[in-house]
């Protein structure tokens, strides 16, 4: 059987700050969600500009 990328035999790493307590793996996933959300809000979808131009051209006709 293929082993895990990380050694899972040890206790999980925990981030503890005042009342906040979370495993590092969960924290990484949440940070990743923020990154994906920011990129999805900022980056244009491929072909979106072309579709917009085609639509404006069709309206002008």
């Amino acid at each position: 059987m293929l082993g895990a990328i990380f050694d899972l035999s040890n206790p999980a790493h925990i981030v503890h700050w005042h009342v906040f307590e979370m495993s590092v793996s969960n924290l990484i996933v949440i940070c990743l969600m923020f990154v994906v959300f920011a990129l999805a809000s900022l980056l244009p979808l491929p072909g979106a500009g072309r579709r917009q131009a085609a639509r404006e051209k069709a309206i002008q006709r």
Partner: protein
Amino acid sequence: MSVAATPPKSPAPGPTPSKSSAPNGTPAKRSWTVRTREAGVAALPPEKLLPDGQPTYVASWIYVFGVATLAALVVIVGSGMILALKGPAWWHFTGVGHFFNSIHLWAVELFFFTMVVHLWGKYWMAAWRGGRARVWMTGAVTFLIAVPAALTGYVSQQNFDAQWISTQAKDAMNSIGAGAFFNVTNFGQMYSWHILLFPIAVVGLVSAHVLLVRRHGVVPPMDVARTTKATP
């Protein structure tokens, strides 16, 4: 005073007229099937249900996460059906079972990941605008139902992880008074909730959510909505 006895009316020959049709041929009292059909078509005409295209503002990455969540849900249900066919212990002793269990787990991870990004996107564009309150509410309730749907999956793993999670979760359930009828240490009950009741609720809510989106249309960005309102 004498009363003439009237003979009982004999049924008219020929086919019995339908209750749903008046003498002039117009439906007097429509059946529930007709009413349901008419209400369905009025609420969701075919061109709205399966449109040819979407507004140009939908061509954005932030609009991708709703359908990504749907795709993950399809994989969850598909892999879950295979796991249900083979039983909850299958993944412990076969490589194929382990493979499908991993597919199921990672589809759930993807489902929640994309659903949260979808939720954030819709929250910041105030997706309940324009009479879309029910769209927002069905989505929010789906999220709330999906959490215990996943929890019951974790406690159905039949391993030490499941034991640990269930013994931790029982305290949470007891603290809110739900432990009497939602016993997370009862494997049979949790497995039933996980493979039947919660999936029905999630799929039903998601179906309603998608149909409501089709009915009201995809919410436009704020600036588009303002421009449209300002235009006479």
